Structure formats: structure tokens, C-alpha cells
């Protein structure tokens, strides 16, 4: 699917904050990033939207969570991480049959690197740092996806 680099959403802003939080109460998100700072930041952004957040420090931890039976509606995946990077983790998760929405979040500059990351199996790609508009867009798409299934 196409990357949504600067997507913004206005339809969620029509709802009250309480409605947005209530709508998202059952959505589980996995934040995968080796930076404690980024994990804290994204954790806070997502909690503001009423999401349940779990964190992983690298791609291997993320893959292991799924191996042990965890499931998430949304994965925010960093690219550059030790042990197993985001691209490898994404490929591994898709091979395992994971159909969660996977959004790449990284500060990659090279279009070739972005392309390779998308081709690993991402649904969307955003450059760091995530903004509230980015998250609104992601949640809108996630709700559409869940409504279809």
C-alpha cells in the first residue's frame, strides 16, 4: 500500500475527545523502537487517543511477542534497531501470517531505503516524529480496515 507521509485527517476532529477515546479503547498497539525516548513519546501520543500500548525494544522482541500468542491491531515499527531491524521484523511477521496494520516510523532519508522497508510488508510509512495528524490518519484507516473484516 502507498505510504502516507503527510496525511492528515479532519473527520476525527468532528468528534469529541471522549468519543475518540471510547472508539479506540479496544485497539491494542505495539510500539517497536530501540530508543527509550521515542517509546515514551509514542506511548503518550497513543494513550491520548485511548489506545492500549505495549512496547518492544527491537524487532526480535516484537516477533517473539507474536510467537508467544500476543496480538495487536497496530504495530509502529522503527527501522534501525539492534538484533533485528524493522525491515527484517516486518518480513518475519508477514511470513508468520500476521495481518495487523504495520506502520513504519523512521527518519530514513533515502527513497531506496524507504521503498525497501515498504516492500517488507508495511501498510504505511511515516517519517519521525509522528504527529497527532499522522496518528489520526492511522486510526481512521485502522477503523476502516476493522469495519471491513
Amino acid at each position, binding site marked *: 500500500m502507498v505510504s502516507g507521509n503527510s496525511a492528515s485527517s479532519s473527520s476525527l476532529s468532528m468528534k469529541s475527545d471522549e468519543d475518540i477515546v471510547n472508539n479506540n479503547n479496544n485497539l491494542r498497539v505495539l510500539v517497536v523502537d530501540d*530508543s*527509550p*525516548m*521515542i517509546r*515514551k*513519546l509514542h506511548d*503518550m*501520543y497513543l494513550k*491520548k487517543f485511548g489506545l492500549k500500548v505495549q512496547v518492544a525494544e527491537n524487532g526480535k522482541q516484537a516477533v517473539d511477542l507474536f510467537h508467544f500468542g500476543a496480538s495487536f491491531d497496530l504495530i509502529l515499527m522503527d527501522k*534501525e534497531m539492534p538484533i533485528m531491524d524493522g525491515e527484517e521484523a516486518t518480513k518475519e511477521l508477514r511470513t508468520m501470517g500476521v495481518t495487523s496494520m504495520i506502520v513504519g516510523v*523512521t*527518519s530514513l*532519508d533515502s527513497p531506496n531505503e524507504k521503498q525497501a522497508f515498504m516492500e517488507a510488508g508495511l501498510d504505511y510509512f511515516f517519517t*519521525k*516524529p509522528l*504527529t*497527532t495528524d499522522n496518528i489520526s490518519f492511522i486510526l481512521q484507516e485502522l477503523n476502516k480496515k476493522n469495519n471491513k473484516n
Partner: protein
Amino acid sequence: MDLVQLQRQLVDYRTSLYHEGFLDEQFTQLQELQDENNPDFVVEVVSLFFQDSERLLNELSKALEQQIIDFKRMDAHVHQLKGSSSSIGAQRVQKLCIVFRNYCEARNVEGCLKCLQQVKHEYALVKTKLESMFQLEQQISNAGGSIPV
């Protein structure tokens, strides 16, 4: 200094940080995430940024002291620093990281050395500025006042 003067001083100081390019819109987003349930969120995230940056700057210094310089590894460190500085809105540090990455790609040792000094300088400046701002906020809180937005 009375409370109103302190509050005015904080607003002016904060405005100057944006005006002089030390901080950008991303810092505003951080402040908007802070609430009564997470009253120290900004200080906590910025502290993590300080820890991260100091580690990365040490790694970069060590890398440039080696006989054989690992430019790829250096680039990875600069990339991380770019990501974390952009995530908290430390604009000047972020912009220097872009230049630094170009020197890493060109395998230009002199350029990298010069850039590292500049990044260290800008980092030290923004750290001092942020610490001063947090001190002002603390003074206002101690005086029983609210932090102006």
C-alpha cells in the same frame, strides 16, 4: 521577582527559543501532550533525550579517534541523534546532523570532526536553554502559579 513577572519572563524566554531556532513546532506538540495525569512528561522526555545524546556524542568522539574510521557506524549514530533531536524539536541539532551525515557518506574525516564539534556545541546550548526554562517553570510552580501556555 513576583509571580506575574516570572510568568512573563518564561513566556518571553520560550518565545526567544523558537525565534532563535533552538526549538520548533515539535516541542509545542510535546507540551500539548502533558496533562495533570502526566505533569512531568516534557521534563522526562527531554531528560531521556539528554541521556541518549550524550551517549551518542561519546560514541561519535570514540569513532573519530580510531585508526580506521567506521563511517557506516558513525552514520548510524548520527542518524539516531537526528531522529531523537527532531522528536523533541531541537531544530539546530537536527539540522547539523543532516550535514554530518553528508560528511559521513563522503567519508570526509575533517568534515566529520568539524561537524562533531558543532553538534556538541549546539547540543550544549540547547541543553542549557532547556534547563533554564525548566528552572523558571519550577520557580513559578513553587510560587503557586500556573505555567503559562
